[in-house]
Structures are given as structure tokens and as C-alpha cells.
């Protein structure tokens, strides 16, 4: 056995899109321990709730992370609506879910591009981001923003999607689906991808359950914690929703779950676009949350379950706003998955977990 050496990894590293630092304790090219460190992009956004009223804080909340912007604005708005006992129109619920699922498609396509780049699949990286660009164009046309949508408000949504735009969304998604299937077939059947991912960074069902993993990371270890199953909002109107699961718990399973979730999201959007009811898209919200009122809410973001907690104090400013993001849960699992893997596989394990440090630090 060789001598144990500590190799620093990140926060700036060619394969890491996020500022995560790992101290890798390595012995004979095997990682025996990984010590994570975050804190490079903390902005203190939760503290801002004291100086911004509950309507203004929505715009702060959606800036927690660029990729999860739609999810954070929807999650925050739902939390404040529950806090104030506001019921939003059905059409607004459908529109929120359509935008949220579109954001899941763009988030997973972004991840697929980055993962393909890490595999050495440059052309797949280009194809994945080419398809993602079409989703961003849809956001631009329907919300007025490509990344930060600013379309959700407390009490509903600011903009409607008319029939023409809805049919354009379906048309674009059909085009994406045709190309995406080819990309995914290539990725999931390629022997070089399998060589790098099958059996690497395995996290068993028991470990994933004990470490409270969330999102595609947990579902790849056969832990079903998809919050969409609760049927909040328009998710409750889906005819059949079965989360994508896998039992292997390795990097390949995580790649597979994420890849298939894109197709599932497209199906959800199509179903909701066909079912969307006519009517108002928002209600007026007046007053302030009652003193001492508190509420919690969960939302399935692209990276997993995100938990929101809010407490009112009788004024327009909230007393406390707490957000527990999916990656802050998944870091513990990532450390467990890294234990025992080869040094060369560290980037694959980290990338297949798809950490979002920007969300985690807020």
C-alpha cells in the first residue's frame, strides 16, 4: 500500500462547472476519503428577506440559481400563497408546471452537454446545447427572458401562453424529441460510456435512503422521493405519473434516469398543453402574512426536492425564509459515492450527481 496523499480538486477545475472544493485523500490512485468544502459563492440571499417585501423577494429568490430560476420562483410563490391562504386559478397552475418542466428539460440538456464533454464526446456536447438553445428560445418568446423568467408572481403568473404559442411549444418539443432520442440512444448504448460509468460511484438503496438523497441521484438508487407524486398544483391532473427509477445506483444509472426524465417532462408538457383550462391567470393578493404564521412547501426541482419554509410577522416583510436545496442534501451522498473510486473517475461521479453549489450556498 502506498502512502496516503491529499489532492485538492476544485473550486476551479476544467470539468467542474460549479465552485466545489474537494480534498481527496488518495492511496494508490484510489480515493479513500473525500472532504468537501463550499462557501465560495455565498451571497446571503435569505437575509435579504428582511429588507424586501414578499413581492420583491420573488425576484431575489429566482436569482438564487440561473438553472433553477423557474423552480425557485414557483416554489417561493407557492409558499407565500399558502402562508396567506391564497388559491390561484387553475390555468396559472398549469402554466407554472409547463414552464417548470421546460426548465427541467433545459437543465438536464445542459447537464448532458457538460457530462458528454467530460466523457470526451465533444460533438454530443454541441448537439445537447443546440437542443437546449431551442428551449431557451421558447422561454424568450413566452416569458420575455431566456434564463431569469420573472413570469411568476404571488397569486399566479404575469403572462399567458396563447394557443399559437402553445402549438409552437409542442412543435419545437417534437423536433427536440426526435433529435434527443438519437443522442440518448448513442449515449446509453456506447461501450466507452458504459466502461466509464457502469459500476462506478455506486450508492446502494440503503445508503441513499439513510443519507436522505433526493432527485435523480436518489431515484437511480431506487429511492422514490419524487415530490411530483404528491400531485401539488397541475401535477395532480396528470393521468399517470410514474417517476423514472433505476436500481443499480451507479453513474450509469444516474445518467440513464436524467436522460429519460427529459422525455418524461416533454410528455407532461404535451399532456398539460392539451388539458389546460381557460380562465384567469392571477388573483390580486393584498395584505400581509399574519404574525407567527408559518408554512413549509416542497417542489421537485431538476436536481431534486427543494424545501421552502416561511414565517410571517404581520408586516409585508417575512420574518424568515429558509430554502433547503437539493444539492445540500446530495453532498453527503456524493462523499459516500466517491469513497473507493479511482481518481480518474472523480469527475464522472461529481458530474453525474449534477451539483448546484450556487443554490446550496445562496
Amino acid at each position, binding site marked *: 500500500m502506498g502512502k496516503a496523499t491529499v489532492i485538492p480538486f476544485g473550486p476551479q477545475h476544467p470539468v467542474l462547472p460549479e465552485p466545489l472544493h474537494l480534498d481527496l485523500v488518495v492511496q494508490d490512485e484510489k480515493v479513500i476519503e473525500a472532504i468537501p468544502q463550499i462557501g465560495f459563492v455565498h451571497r446571503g440571499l435569505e437575509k435579504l428577506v428582511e429588507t*424586501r417585501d414578499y*413581492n*420583491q*423577494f420573488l*425576484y*431575489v429568490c429566482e*436569482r438564487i440559481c440561473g438553472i433553477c430560476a423557474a423552480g425557485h420562483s414557483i416554489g417561493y410563490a407557492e409558499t407565500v400563497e399558502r402562508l396567506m391562504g391564497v388559491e390561484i386559478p387553475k390555468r396559472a397552475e398549469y402554466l407554472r408546471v409547463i414552464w417548470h418542466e421546460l426548465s427541467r428539460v433545459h437543465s438536464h440538456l445542459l447537464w448532458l452537454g457538460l457530462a458528454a464533454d467530460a466523457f470526451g*464526446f465533444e*460533438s*454530443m456536447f454541441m*448537439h445537447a446545447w*443546440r437542443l437546449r*438553445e431551442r428551449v431557451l428560445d421558447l422561454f*424568450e*418568446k*413566452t*416569458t*420575455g*427572458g431566456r434564463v*431569469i423568467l*420573472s413570469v411568476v408572481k404571488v397569486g399566479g403568473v*404575469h*403572462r399567458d401562453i396563447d394557443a399559437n404559442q402553445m402549438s409552437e411549444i409542442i412543435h419545437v418539443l417534437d423536433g427536440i424529441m426526435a*433529435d434527443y432520442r*438519437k*443522442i440518448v*440512444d*448513442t*449515449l446509453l*448504448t*456506447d*461501450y466507452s460510456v458504459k466502461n466509464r460509468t457502469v459500476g462506478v460511484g455506486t450508492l446502494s438503496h440503503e445508503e441513499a435512503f439513510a443519507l436522505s438523497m433526493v432527485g435523480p441521484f436518489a431515484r437511480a438508487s431506487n429511492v422514490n422521493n419524487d415530490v411530483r407524486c404528491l400531485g401539488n398544483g397541475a401535477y395532480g391532473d396528470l393521468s399517470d405519473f410514474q417517476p423514472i427509477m433505476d436500481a443499480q445506483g451507479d453513474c450509469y444509472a444516474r445518467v440513464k434516469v436524467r436522460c429519460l426524465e427529459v422525455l418524461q417532462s416533454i410528455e407532461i408538457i404535451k399532456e398539460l398543453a392539451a388539458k389546460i383550462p381557460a380562465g384567469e391567470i392571477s388573483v390580486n393578493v393584498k395584505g400581509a402574512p399574519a404574525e407567527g404564521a408559518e408554512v413549509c412547501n416542497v417542489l421537485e426541482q431538476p436536481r431534486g426536492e427543494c424545501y421552502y419554509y416561511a414565517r410571517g410577522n404581520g408586516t409585508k416583510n417575512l420574518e424568515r425564509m429558509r430554502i433547503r436545496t437539493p444539492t445540500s442534501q446530495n453532498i453527503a451522498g456524493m462523499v459516500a459515492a466517491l469513497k473507493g473510486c479511482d481518481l480518474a473517475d472523480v469527475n464522472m461521479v461529481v458530474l453525474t450527481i449534477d451539483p448546484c453549489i450556487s443554490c446550496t450556498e445562496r
Partner: protein
Amino acid sequence: MSGFKLGGMTIGSVFKKPETLLYPFEQKQAPAGLRGHVIVDLSMCVFCGICQKRCPADAIAVDKAAGTWAIDDFACVQCACCVKECPKNCLLMEPSPSAVGTSKAPRVFVVGSMR
């Protein structure tokens, strides 16, 4: 074999219309509802200051006595909150992005101007 599928797709894109534009000779048309930058018509403004109060980024400064309305483009987050809240509908969101700034000073509008 799977590599050939992607190769076929890549070769196919040689014969398709390019996904990218030949910027700056071709430019992308901004969609009608794009949130580019805020403009104000001061002939309709009553200087109530609601836009200043509602702005989450504290980017707007309204001075009723001096008859000026100023926006700091570097602080503005293009949320269009001011446009939605304006009781006189004198604020508009132009689809084009704001012009490149030559200084970090806010854009100041005085009564009788529209930019």
C-alpha cells in the same frame, strides 16, 4: 455502432440550415415581449414614486421637485415590476437591450423627454 448514429447526425447537419447566425451580418429578431430595458414617457408621469418603492433592486430614483426620473441600468434586473405597477402606464419595456453605457451614472430623464 452507436458512435455512427451521432456521426450520421453530425454529417446530416452539414446539409441542413445552420443553427447559428452569421453575427453581426445577421441578427436575431427580438420577440415582442422581450424584457430589454425600461423607458419612460415623462409627459404622462405624475411622479408618484410607486415604481421607486416597488423596484426590488432600488434602481429607480424619482424626484418630484426637480421633475426628474432616473434609472440605474447597472442595478436594474429587468423584472418589469415598475412597468406593471405604474398607475399611469408611462413606463414601457423595450424589447432591445439597453445601449452600452459609457459611464456608471444612471440615465436621468427630465420632463418633456422620452427615450
